């Protein structure tokens, strides 16, 4: 291999306590021309303060419409190692669990076929294999499937669903986030690999309202655990927290958004009838409090980044859902939504934008859900109501 290029600017980023991506690239550059030329081109970007990638072309593996992001250098003569520098998105295991063996499998494949660089993980959640050339795509894919891995999504398809660690390691998981994630990923392999929608579709699963995968902010369907009975409370443990210095009144009671708690210095009272299941009191006292026993999830719809109509947070679609394998009710709902959105959605219109355009009431009618007050933060403030007189007449009969 040729020597590493001079990178005085990037070298600055090897200093300091945080792990350095420059060190990582250099490590890979010892063995991979792609990584070496990436280093060179990146130094150039740092000097010129501009990226040196061309707008991606369409590349991929046979029969799949997504999963590979095509990328080409605009300085191919200077940096031939990155003249092609495509990325493969690979479905991560639910909860990002690995054995050392599985991890090594991936490393071995990528040592042979790519730059030796990865993102663990991409911000959708995939294993991102960073940079290879077109001829390497099929062989990489073949090796991946041999080891039990498959590609993720890109383009107007379902993206790899992702979830929080949930019941595997968290006492607050209100449903099986990993199980549902795996099930949806397997059920929608076709939709994942073969773009068929107006735009992308993301599923994210969090086990409780803490929402440790940021589902409410970045998934078209956000399934977030919750409960509907009383918080489980151990009074003795509450007192221990107080004894150990937790200021229960100021830091817990006053932070309750429902203002439904009382603390007299001895006993904590929670008026569960008004509790909003926000998690705060439980977060503050994990040994003393826990979500109730009647657990399930809230299903929310429509979050996304700003392009085109502005960023959205997901909003409530099903206030409380009891997840039960094989989740047929959820899949019926999802498919009803996909039908309507595929039929009526505009090109590059995410489902959240679609709902805003057609109106939530109309959308609910189209997918066959009844309006519920939990779907809105508050009822309309403007008097511009479309009255459906036919209904009134029905009632009169």
């Amino acid at each position, binding site marked *: 291999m040729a020597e590493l290029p001079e990178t005085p600017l990037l070298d600055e980023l090897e200093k300091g306590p945080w792990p350095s991506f420059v060190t990582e690239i250099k490590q890979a550059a010892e063995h991979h021309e792609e990584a070496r030329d990436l280093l060179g081109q990146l130094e150039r970007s740092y000097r010129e303060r501009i990226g040196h990638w061309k707008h991606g072309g369409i590349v991929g593996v046979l029969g799949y419409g997504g999963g590979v992001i095509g990328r080409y250098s605009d300085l191919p003569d200077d940096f031939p190692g990155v003249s092609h520098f495509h990325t493969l998105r690979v479905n991560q295991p639910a909860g990002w669990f690995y054995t050392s063996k599985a991890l090594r499998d991936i490393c071995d494949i990528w040592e042979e076929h790519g730059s030796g660089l990865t993102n663990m993980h991409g911000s959708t959640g995939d294993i991102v294999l960073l940079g290879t050339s077109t001829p390497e795509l099929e062989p990489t894919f073949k090796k991946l499937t041999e080891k039990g891995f498959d590609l993720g999504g890109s383009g107007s398809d379902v993206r790899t669903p992702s979830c929080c660690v949930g019941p595997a390691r968290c006492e607050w998981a209100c449903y099986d986030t990993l199980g549902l994630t795996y099930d949806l990923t397997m059920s929608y392999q076709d939709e994942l690999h073969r773009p068929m929608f107006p735009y992308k579709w993301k599923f994210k699963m969090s086990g409780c309202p803490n929402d440790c995968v940021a589902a409410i902010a970045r998934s078209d369907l956000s399934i977030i655990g919750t409960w509907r009975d009383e918080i489980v409370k151990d009074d003795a443990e509450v007192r221990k927290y107080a004894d150990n210095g937790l200021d229960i009144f100021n830091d817990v009671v006053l932070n309750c958004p429902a203002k439904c708690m009382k603390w007299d210095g001895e006993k904590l009272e929670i008026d569960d009838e008004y509790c909003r299941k926000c998690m705060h009191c439980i977060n503050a006292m994990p040994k003393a409090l826990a979500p109730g026993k009647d657990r399930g999830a809230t299903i929310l719809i429509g979050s996304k980044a*700003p392009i085109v109509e502005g960023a959205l947070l997901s909003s409530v679609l099903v206030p409380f859902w009891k997840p039960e394998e094989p989740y047929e009710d959820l899949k019926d709902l999802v498919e009803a939504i996909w039908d309507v959105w595929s039929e009526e959605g505009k090109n590059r219109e995410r489902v959240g934008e679609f709902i805003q355009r057609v109106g939530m009431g109309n959308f609910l009618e189209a997918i066959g859900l009844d309006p519920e007050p939990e779907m809105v933060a508050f009822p309309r403030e403007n008097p511009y109501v479309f009255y459906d007189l036919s209904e009134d007449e029905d009632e009169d009969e």
Partner: protein
Amino acid sequence: MAEKVKRVTDIGPPHHDKLMPPICKENYGTWKYHEVLKPGVMVHVGATGDKLYTVRAAGARLVSIYRLRQFADLADKYCDGYLRFTSRHNIEFLLTYDANIDPLIADLAAMGVSVGGIGAAITSIVHTQGWVHCHSAATDASGVVKAVMDVVHPYFNGEKKLPGKLRIALACCLNMCGAVHCSDIAILGIHRKAPRTDHTQVAKICEIPNVVSACPTAAIRPTQVDGTPSVEVIEEQCMYCANCFTVCPSMPLNDPENDGVSIWVGGKVSNARSEPMFSKLAIPYIPNNPPRWPEVTDVILKLVELWAANAKPFERMGEWINRITWPKFFKMAGIEFQKEHIDDFKHAGLTFKRSTQIVH
């Protein structure tokens, strides 16, 4: 077609059951509680008393396979070969034997990897590709992230205390792949000049109606240039979102002089206490200053310190600002309020102050 039949496709990922430590399977869904033992180390206790120790190691996210193999070695050495990654790209070693904790941490330290990020701390920065891989980037991602994490590192490894969690995110362009729109502090790459249209190419490579409809502010009109169909950008109406570039490569916006980053604050995702909130514009523009973006790291450190010194326990950045009000925040942070801070997009009117509740 024969080819196609032979190929294995649509198999999805390996089932997590095969990759999870036995203790997780045995206590699946029946964990009782957890405790933070020290910075970067926590224990989860099961119904039967089983204990699972987690050591969270700093993740650069852009990692080489050589580093991954080192992690695999450590997992073999201390964790029966089990580890996981977090939703924010850290590495979690899953131990059942507490005596392994300190040796693991020592080995990590020797590799230059610190542990932390658990509890009331700053954890790693969710981010994106930047100049490493994306054609759209208005700034680099990994470099800014590294520079910022270096300065806030004492809040990662527990050397310094914080009132609550603080999440930083970075996206290198308005596509916001880092989903920075709901972060305590967000760093967002921005362009500030309208696209340079290559009129000879537009009609060849792009679908003009798609290009026109891509623009959120209707700044693009179909036109003819030298007899060729193309598009015209009304510059005063362009706010440099690059959505036209996404659908049409002949309209690049990248520009070393005018690209840079903006800083946003006060977003959150969790439903704890307050509802999820979007981040809001704090600093409209800081020029790209590689390799270490000192203006960016300075301001972020300052914001973190300001919040740390003034927020109540558990109070996230946005919750603190909502309590003291935004004008007070601008004053305390010494940020000049400018026209750019005032929303002028679709729902702008709802951001106006519709009350006399002012901290004078």
